[in-house]
């Protein structure tokens, strides 16, 4: 087959010493960027572009792509070990990831995350090879009404995240939505709840909120005698997941891959949406869903796989249509252009060898990421052996730098502190944090797409039901919300088989 031929040629080109080195360096740098606070993937890729200017086009792009999906993994490391997300998409991993660290299973969490990332990334790249063009076009079918419908599905998963008390979950969700509304509204361009402050015109910074609500509040909630996980530095045995954990992760990884891939195709979807929805899906569909929140491996496997699957799938619109699906990819696209390559269909006709070399290196890079990080799990987890007072101080240092460098402003540090205190209050009142994060991420997307849809239809709400895709999705969302009411019998636990 023609494509297979081209791919094989691509592999040959990608496996030169230089290109392998570039891919490796990219993975390494990407992971480090993901770990470091303050450098999100966007800034990280942008900062490293000058480094790649002197390389040939293929090598430069290989390295930049590797950095890109490397950051998706790097953010996980701090989420799991330090309860501080290195980047937005890793936010949801802190819940079960850090819980696993607290019971001494940090190594298992990181390993599963690495493997899940590999699986997700590789499957997505296979998708790129197999069906890039049709998939790219599929992404285009999602217009504002379909986007809105997807958000409805997402928010309906809030019900799944509810846990014990629906009332508290709804409060959490409402809070998240309200926080998301601070700033200039997309409808009339008027400031909402900004109290006259310039800094709030863009809204409250998501990373500052997350670092505060998850990381800082956890720190503040320690009672006398608690140590931040230094006690639970794992020995070598517990670095690897148990057979049971591998088995449990498999379905989670499958779900995560699907969700991440599907959402990655849609321009405008960020990685955080994928990891959030994957977590929601685990809460809804996993056999062990009752353990989520206390250190269930699915809570790491699902979101992490989704995250990497998303990152790799998001390259599809770039390669096939020349459309950047997210700010990070837009920066990547800038690098393409500076190297004289125009992403899009012309890339395959004018620079076919380069295009296929890059695609081949995506496979290689995902593998390198795995090979790089699994052995390093031991190294990363040894961070936990640091005495707890130093660890606390370092975590605080991380958080401050992370918050400050969002906008190079002290304001965001104050935001982080404020939300740390809020998070503390919420923990004390037993109000779940996950719904708040869900609405914080999805809320603005939902409001924006609602408004765009109504501008297209000039105020006619039937646009949502007259278009097939959005009608189906909205139906799905409603189904998810009302399904608990429709079930006549509460589903039996784990191994009980109701029939025979």
């Amino acid at each position, binding site marked *: 087959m023609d494509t297979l031929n081209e791919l094989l040629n691509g592999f040959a080109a990608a496996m030169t010493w230089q290109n392998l080195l570039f891919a490796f360096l990219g993975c390494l740098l990407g992971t480090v960027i993901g770990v*470091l606070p*303050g*450098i999100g993937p966007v*800034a990280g890729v942008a*900062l490293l572009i000058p480094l790649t200017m002197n390389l040939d086009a293929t090598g430069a792009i290989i390295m930049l792509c590797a950095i890109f999906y490397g950051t998706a993994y790097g953010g996980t490391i701090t989420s799991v070990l330090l309860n501080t997300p290195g980047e937005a998409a890793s936010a949801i991993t802190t819940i079960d990831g850090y819980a696993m660290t607290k019971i001494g299973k940090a190594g298992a969490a990181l390993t599963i995350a690495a493997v899940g990332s590999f699986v997700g990334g590789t499957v997505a790249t296979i998708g790129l090879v197999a069906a890039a063009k049709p998939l790219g076009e599929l992404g285009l079918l999602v217009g504002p009404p379909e986007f809105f419908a997807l958000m409805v599905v997402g928010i309906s998963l809030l019900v799944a995240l509810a846990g*014990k*008390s629906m*009332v*508290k979950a*709804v*409060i959490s969700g*409402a*809070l998240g*939505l*309200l926080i998301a*509304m601070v700033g200039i*509204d997309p*409808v*009339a361009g*008027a400031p*909402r*709840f900004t109290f006259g402050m310039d800094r709030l015109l863009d809204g409250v910074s998501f990373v500052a909120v997350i670092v505060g609500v998850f990381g*800082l509040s956890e720190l*503040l*909630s*320690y*009672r*006398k005698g608690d140590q931040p996980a230094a006690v639970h530095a794992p020995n070598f045995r517990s670095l690897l997941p148990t057979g049971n954990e591998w088995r449990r992760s498999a379905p989670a990884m499958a779900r995560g891959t699907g969700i991440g891939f599907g959402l990655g195709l849609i321009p405008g979807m960020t990685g955080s949406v994928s990891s959030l929805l994957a977590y929601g899906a685990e809460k809804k569909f996993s056999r062990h869903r009752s353990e989520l929140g206390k250190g269930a491996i699915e809570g790491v496997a699902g979101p992490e796989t989704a995250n990497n699957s998303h990152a790799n799938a998001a390259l599809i619109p770039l390669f096939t249509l020349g459309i950047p699906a997210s700010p990070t990819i837009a920066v990547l696209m800038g690098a393409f252009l500076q190297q004289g390559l125009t992403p899009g269909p012309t890339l395959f006709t004018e620079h076919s060898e380069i295009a296929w070399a890059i695609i081949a290196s995506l496979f290689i890079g995902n593998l390198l990421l795995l090979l790089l990080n699994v052995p390093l799990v031991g190294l990363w987890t040894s961070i936990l052996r640091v*005495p707890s*007072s*130093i660890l*606390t*101080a*370092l975590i*605080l*240092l991380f958080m*401050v*730098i992370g918050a*400050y*460098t969002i906008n*190079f402003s*002290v304001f965001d*540090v*104050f935001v982080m*502190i404020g939300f*740390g*205190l809020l998070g*503390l*209050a919420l923990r*004390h*009142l*037993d109000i779940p944090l996950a719904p708040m994060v869900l609405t914080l991420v999805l*809320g603005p997307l939902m*409001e924006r797409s*609602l*408004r765009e849809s*109504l501008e297209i239809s*000039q*105020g006619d*709400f039937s646009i949502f039901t007259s278009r097939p895709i959005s009608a189906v999705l909205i139906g799905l969302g409603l189904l998810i919300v009302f399904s608990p009411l429709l079930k006549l019998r509460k589903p039996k636990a784990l191994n009980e088989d109701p029939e025979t």
Partner: protein
Amino acid sequence: MTTESVTTTTASTVRVAPSVLAGIGAFAAVGAYVLVTSVDLGLWTSLGPGPGLFPFAMGAVLVAMAVVWLFQELRRPSQTAEGVDRGLVIAVALSLVVLAAVLDLLGFQLSMFLFLMYHLKLRGRRGWPSSLITALAGSVGAFYAFNYGLNVSLPVSAFPLLNTIGL
């Protein structure tokens, strides 16, 4: 579905915990505030929801949920988690606030050095050598690493005097 809380009759289970009441009150208050102010933003335009609609809805939800929660509490008061360690919260929160306040004034290196020393030596009661080394690494070390390694500029002092010694 609410799980049955283990009903051990310890001293004050009949009463609603004051912190819970405070929480309910706070949410109700925020909800009411949002409800009122969002009307001004406009609830509906010719093309659909106005800027005030979602906040209005959320404000209403908060108030409603706060009321429901109150009733739930009155029927069966929940056992709140053990109290927070006030000393810890104040120490950490306050030190962070001070840090953020002086960050632009004294520059990153000096502010962070003082901050780290406070947490390592005073609160953590570590020895001088390990505190100093860690604090220096975290302040001066981090500053140079970010500045030259990653081209990310952390704040320098606003005082020219400190500028000349590289802070």
